[in-house]
């Protein structure tokens, strides 16, 4: 599988979708993700797990940040910075796909 490496173009309107071959489960204090195709495991902490769970349905980065800002005492800018970084990592690991926004005609 080829993964998109660049996250520099990630915008708030990008649609984030979990990849179909990823199974996840809560285990003690972390969320473990497994790639069925590659047989690799990944673990994220409670905040990462919550973010992952919010992606059970595809959603935009803006929607994701909005939801997280409601759950945590964090500024919108700080939330966007941290989530953008996290989403970039998930993308590099092949756990999610990012669809750019459709440009208006």
């Amino acid at each position, binding site marked *: 599988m080829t993964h998109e490496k660049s996250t520099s173009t990630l915008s708030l309107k990008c649609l984030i979708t979990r990849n179909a071959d990823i*199974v*996840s*489960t*809560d*285990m*003690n204090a972390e969320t473990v993700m*497994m790639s069925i195709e590659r*047989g690799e*495991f990944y673990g994220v902490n409670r905040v990462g797990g919550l973010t992952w769970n919010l992606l059970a349905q595809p959603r935009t980065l803006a929607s994701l940040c909005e939801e997280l800002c409601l759950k945590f005492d964090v500024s919108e800018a700080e939330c966007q910075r941290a989530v953008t970084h996290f989403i970039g990592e998930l993308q590099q690991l092949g756990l999610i796909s990012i669809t750019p926004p459709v440009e208006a005609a």
Partner: protein
Amino acid sequence: MNPDAQQSTLPRWPALEQALDFNALAPGVLPLVQAIAATDNLPERLAKMALLMRERALERDARLLARAAIALAPEDYRIRVMTDWLVRREAPLWHFGIVHDNLRNEAYARALEHFVKPGMTVFEIGTGTGILAMLAARAGARHVYTCERRADVAAAARAIIERNGLADHITVIAKDAQLVELGRDIPERADLFVAEIVDDTLLGEQVLPLTELARARFLQPGAILLPRAISTIGYLVSGRGHRERYRMGEVLGFDLSLFNRFSPPEIGLPKGGDNVEPLSAPMELASFDLMQDAPKESRRTVTLMATQSGMVEGVMRWLRLDFGEGIIFENRPPQTSSWSPILHVLPHPRFVRAGQSVSMEVSHTRDRLFMIPLS
């Protein structure tokens, strides 16, 4: 749990449901297993997942997954390597050491040949490979009941016993001795008890409580015990650097001596004693008649008189198993065996002249023997 996991397929590997109890898995682990149940390289994935569970301290799940991997691919060496942590836990490496100990084997074989009479029933604690049970059967025992707490080892012993044509004469009970039931696992009290449950230190494998358990629950009054007595014998030894191997001083210009707070008061020596030089005559330091209940604790003073001058590093001791009728096992150095001698080090090496003495306090609990220098 995410919705994807709940939609996973049922196992495609027909043997998986026999190899793995899905209901026993932690709820968080189950969806991962279900997701890979239909993959071609399932055994390797299970073995890898077992390692993941170990990292997360989910020991029970790790064991279940590793066992399933082995069951699905018993001949796959990759799986064997990835699950060695489980195999080692079930069958420690000392099993290989003791069966190559001819001195030990011959002592037990002679004792069993001598004491087992046709028609006798035999009870054993600690089946291991089944070698002692088979020796007892070969010596004429009507039946041998032997218990082994490690289920995998018990299964291997059963297979070995069957291969050697003795399955009709030996019953392997896959239970801890404490859980064996008279009238259920063993039909009647046995006439003879055999066990090899001593370690390098003598008492560490619970020989005292387990022999007492056997006498109280599973043996006829006056049953023969093999061995019937155990002891440890030792002498003063001169310094050959054993103590220094477990101490630190200056290394590469740094003073590491404060680490000596962790230096051990007793050291397992290489088998055969590594050419230590005795400075006194051998002396019995502690002895236990297994026909009697041992005291919970005891304390006595032993005095070892130097027969030649030298720098005393400590007291080296070894094992003696007395089977009766002159049949004795003793790994007195330089005799090698699967048991290693123990060196009780003095806090500071001491020069003694021939005729001078070193006194030691020897005490024990149910499973430990202590030696503390007094003078």
